[in-house]
């Protein structure tokens, strides 16, 4: 008892003299020593050794206690067997003084150099063997004669599920979108959980119906924050709903990853550090649409059919600017209201204005109304529609009238890229239907979140938020990386409808 107490005091003193406290394993460490010098650093902090490291038969030997404590292992000393042991995580190493045989996790291994007791009375051990056996990295700089041991942070393992919430419309004007949002997110969650989860913890996806409505979305987001304690929120998917709720996420300091595409959700407008966008925004898409019209179709006299709500008018603003940059004058803009079912006069005027391309900036049903009229009145120019013109909600209504329509899309399931194909196949297998925009962005989003949690090494929403700003992830939409506008991607497709599928004309970037 007394002996043990003395021992303890000696160890304490010893540690005090050396001036370092053992690091916590979870945090990782970088240990640097120089041959022949008692000066060393642990995580850039200077420490002094009582015995300088030495080289013997090409191997660096260091004091056994120093290396053990520096890397955060538990150290054991058996005076009877003259053996030294290190335990770190699930690794167990036993060395015996004067013996080249070591036991790592019960398996015998042979050392190049045996541990030994120096004439000074210090016990030294081979640093490379110890370090590599417990999974650390060892670098040798021959010119500075410095050894760097890098101990990676041990992966934390959480037992409780990580809660994430999806707010998407299942009823209301955007109901089909909710199905896609959930389809994409759930697929990613299930894949991740089947592969062992995030650091051992399962993802738990809770889905709510926000009815594409700002006030319902606010209720959903409050519930996600207050009672579900979600670490991140996916959606809402409707721009107007996001505008109404993103401040809630900001206040609660919980990241919100959305597939809403209004340019007004860019970081330079919102200044919300917790709001991220998972697919190309409308401004980007319109710019690409115009670029295609001018550079590829070589159109000179564009005519526009325009819907009346914010989605349409903000697209018009971008389109006007883009055409202006090319020095091209829009020859005619005809408006219609959501719900209008006759556009005979509008299409007649566009036709008589001599347009050489029709730019469609409307929602899906209006796009169908326009196309039926275009076919009836035989307006024979290329039709290049905005994102609403590139989804089934339009082609289902327009039927054959949609054949030949070119559209700028956020996603095209017909893309032959292997990552896209893998996603499309998995989605079809799971849900029995083809994915459509925005399924891919929530799928990518969940994987992004996984990576951010792993990088943060924490499920603290604030830390996840920080990590989201720096992580890179290559998914269905290519490289995803948060830019200055908090957009993860600008990917879009220019595609043409052939009556069944959308043939990719070009994929940008």
């Amino acid at each position, binding site marked *: 008892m007394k002996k043990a107490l003395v021992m303890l005091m000696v160890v304490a003193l010893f540690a005090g003299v050396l001036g370092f406290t053992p690091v916590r394993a979870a945090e990782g460490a970088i240990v640097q020593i120089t041959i022949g010098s008692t000066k060393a650093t642990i995580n850039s902090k200077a420490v002094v050794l009582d015995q300088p490291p030495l080289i013997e038969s090409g191997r660096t030997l260091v004091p056994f206690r120093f290396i053990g404590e520096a890397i955060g292992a538990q150290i054991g000393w058996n005076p009877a067997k003259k053996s030294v042991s290190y335990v770190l995580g699930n690794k167990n190493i036993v060395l015996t003084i004067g013996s080249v045989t070591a036991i790592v996790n019960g398996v015998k291994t042979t050392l190049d150099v045996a541990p030994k007791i120096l004439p000074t009375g210090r016990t030294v051990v081979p640093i490379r063997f110890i370090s590599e056996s417990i999974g650390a990295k060892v670098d040798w700089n021959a010119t500075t004669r410095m050894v760097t041991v890098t101990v990676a942070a041990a992966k934390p393992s959480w037992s409780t599920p990580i809660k994430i919430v999806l707010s998407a419309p299942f009823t209301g004007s955007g109901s089909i979108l909710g199905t896609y949002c959930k389809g994409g997110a759930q697929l990613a969650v299930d894949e991740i959980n089947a592969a062992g989860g995030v650091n051992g913890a399962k993802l738990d996806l809770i889905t709510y119906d926000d009815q594409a409505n700002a006030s319902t979305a606010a209720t959903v987001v409050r519930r996600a924050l207050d009672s579900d304690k979600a670490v991140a929120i996916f959606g809402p998917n409707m721009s107007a709903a996001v505008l109404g709720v993103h401040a809630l996420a900001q206040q609660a300091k919980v990241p919100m990853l959305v597939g809403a595409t209004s340019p007004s959700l860019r970081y330079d407008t919102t200044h919300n550090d917790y709001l991220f966008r998972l697919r190309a925004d409308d401004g980007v898409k319109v710019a690409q649409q115009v670029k295609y019209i001018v550079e590829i179709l070589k159109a000179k006299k564009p005519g526009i059919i325009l819907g009346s709500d914010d989605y349409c008018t903000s697209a018009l603003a971008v389109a006007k600017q883009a055409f202006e940059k090319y020095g091209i004058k829009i020859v005619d803009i005809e408006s219609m209201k959501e719900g209008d079912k*006759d556009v005979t006069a509008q299409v007649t005027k566009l036709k008589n204005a001599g347009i050489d391309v029709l730019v469609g900036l409307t929602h899906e049903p209006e796009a169908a109304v326009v196309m039926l009229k275009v076919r009836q009145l035989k307006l024979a120019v290329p039709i290049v529609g905005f994102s609403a013109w590139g989804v089934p909600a339009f082609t289902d209504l*327009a039927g054959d009238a949609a054949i030949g329509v070119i559209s700028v899309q956020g996603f095209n399931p017909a893309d032959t890229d292997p990552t896209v194909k893998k996603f499309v196949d998995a989605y079809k297998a799971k849900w029995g239907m083809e994915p459509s925009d925005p399924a891919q962005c929530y799928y990518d989003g969940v994987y992004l979140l996984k990576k951010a949690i792993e990088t943060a090494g924490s499920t603290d929403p604030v830390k996840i938020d920080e990590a989201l700003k720096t992580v890179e992830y290559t998914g269905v939409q290519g490289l995803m990386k948060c830019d200055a506008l908090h957009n993860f991607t600008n990917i879009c497709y220019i595609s043409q409808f052939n009556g069944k599928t959308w043939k990719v004309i070009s994929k940008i970037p």
Partner: protein
Amino acid sequence: MVLSDLLQNIIGGVTVGATYGLIGLGVVFLWQSIERINFANISSAMLAAYLFYTFYTQLHLGFLVAFVVSIAIIAAYGLALRHLVLEPINRHGGDKLEFVVATLMLCTFWLSVVKVLYGGIAKPFPPVFGEATSFVQIGSISIPSVYFWIFFVVLVLVLVLYVLLQRTMIGKMFRATAQNKEMASLVGINVGMTTSLAFMLSTSIVGIAGILLAPIYFVSLDLGGGPIGVKGFAAAVMGGLIDPLGTILGGLSIGLIENFSTLFISSAYKDVISFVVLVVVLVWKPRGIFNWTTKGD
């Protein structure tokens, strides 16, 4: 602007105008029968279209069965309107205004119900009146085949309604009930029955209109409110709320005004211009544009 463009626009305006008129007929009928304006008038069009879609496209019943069952349900709905909306209001001493408020809420209610049950995305209507992209070519003018159906049904409905209200005993009983319920009962008219029939006929007319218009409007929430509902009322107002023929002509005028104001002025002012015309008509001839015979009392 060439002649064919003009004709093409007249056809477009007339067709859409006829749809407004058709919806207006439901308004006229109820007014003629019980002097009430059902602000959920247009809901019957949406409900019928969705019912038909359910029976025809989802349950694969034949056209005739799907049509008859849908309209029967819509007629029953009309009866329910009477017993669950009109009568309770009357019992509690409510009048026209209370009915307006109740039916306004009903209109929103049905929109939400359909949204919840079918989602908000417009669905394609089965091509029972011909493919949407099948056009009849007459010279340089091209007319979608469904337009002919619309013209035909509008014509038939107007005639039937006109004869019913003006020429038959039951029609006169409807009108007598509308003008003075107590007196109607004193001359031996079963007011309960005429009221029920009026509701059922009103919802059925609009229901038929809904199915007929679905190829143009799609199976969508647009059939349950919005422009068509408002313009249906406008058409009915142009018919002085009593004249089926005037209502159809009123609807046609609105359709044509919309087309021509887009064509000759600007599409951006289309609704403003139609609205101004409507207000002018209301001020100038409050009892309907085609009502030349009577003076106000």
